[in-house]
């Protein structure tokens, strides 16, 4: 029969073995009603121009190009951290300058995109950049184009991790936590604010229509028509 000492040692060995195991980034799947609506448009025989504003996703590029569409990728969250688009405010603090930001990013011709996948960008982007970015997206989208945006609800809490969304099916997404190398160490971007429905309606007031999809995981999907 094992002694008490053996059992205690086995307990601690097990704990240290668990602690030594490398952290594997967790991915999880979620069904997306917004993506299901987008997929109906993506099943068109016409070659569409799709703009993906998340970090590089081989899944998304493969999914979109396999359907014959042109895929544009631009990681706007990472771009918003570029020191070159920051200026000092009156308090001497470095803040992003929306004019500089839009000189370097989203520099497309007007009316180019049929679909824009914005994911959770407004929730994690600096406040001063959000409205100018949305206005620019309106300009570069075709009339009738679709914009998909995800917003956290209050239930998500202030430490809601930032996820990258990979398209894995017509209505399925795989969520992967994002870590940005903004300051030497890779950190998860912080949730900047929680939009309520009125905030969202104001943000997208130039769009023709807005549709909300509520999900159980504290994410509100918003589908807009340009």
């Amino acid at each position, binding site marked *: 029969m094992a002694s008490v000492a053996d059992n205690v040692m086995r307990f601690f060995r097990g704990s240290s073995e668990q602690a030594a195991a490398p952290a594997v980034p967790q991915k999880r799947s979620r069904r997306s009603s917004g993506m299901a609506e987008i997929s109906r448009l993506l099943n068109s025989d*016409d*070659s*569409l121009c799709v703009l993906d504003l998340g*970090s*590089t996703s*081989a899944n998304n*590029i*493969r999914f979109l*190009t*396999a359907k*014959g*569409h*042109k*895929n*544009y*990728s*631009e*990681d706007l969250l990472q771009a918003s951290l570029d020191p070159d688009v920051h200026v000092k405010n009156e308090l001497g603090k470095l803040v992003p300058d929306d004019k500089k930001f839009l000189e370097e990013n989203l520099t497309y011709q007007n009316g180019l995109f049929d679909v824009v996948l914005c994911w959770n960008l407004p929730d994690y982007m600096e406040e001063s950049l959000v409205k100018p970015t949305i206005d620019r997206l309106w300009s570069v989208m075709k009339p009738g184009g679709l914009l998909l945006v995800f917003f956290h609800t209050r239930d998500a809490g202030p430490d809601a991790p930032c996820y990258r969304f990979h398209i894995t099916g017509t209505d399925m997404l795989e969520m992967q936590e994002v870590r940005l190398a903004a300051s030497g160490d890779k950190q998860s971007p912080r949730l900047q604010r929680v939009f309520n429905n009125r905030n969202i309606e104001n943000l997208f007031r130039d769009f023709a229509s807005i549709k909300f999809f509520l999900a159980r995981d504290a994410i509100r999907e918003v589908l807009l028509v340009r």
Partner: protein
Amino acid sequence: MDVPKTGDFAHIGKSVVIKGELTGSEDMYVDGNVDGSIELRNNSLTVGPNAKIKASVVAKVVVIQGRVEGSITTSDRVELKKSAVVNGDITTQRIAIEEGAAFQGKVEIQREAGKSAGS
């Protein structure tokens, strides 16, 4: 990924800086700086991890481990390895992107030689 193991290829080391047109009829491994254009219509280009390419690239196959800024056109495929940083438009028949690669630009799949999909 290491230097290609096939025998016949041109090797441009990391200390080499080229400004202008780079053309050839053999596979090429570039680990230096190129500013201009690279054309290897029937061959492969491997961009090494130290490379900084600011050029339009035309080749049969392009494998990228370093930095490329410029358009990339291949008749076969493009591979972005995990250390790749690419800013530019890619036109190709097939594309493979490893986890960790950074890409900004357009991807257009060219389904038939000489025709682009949906253009």
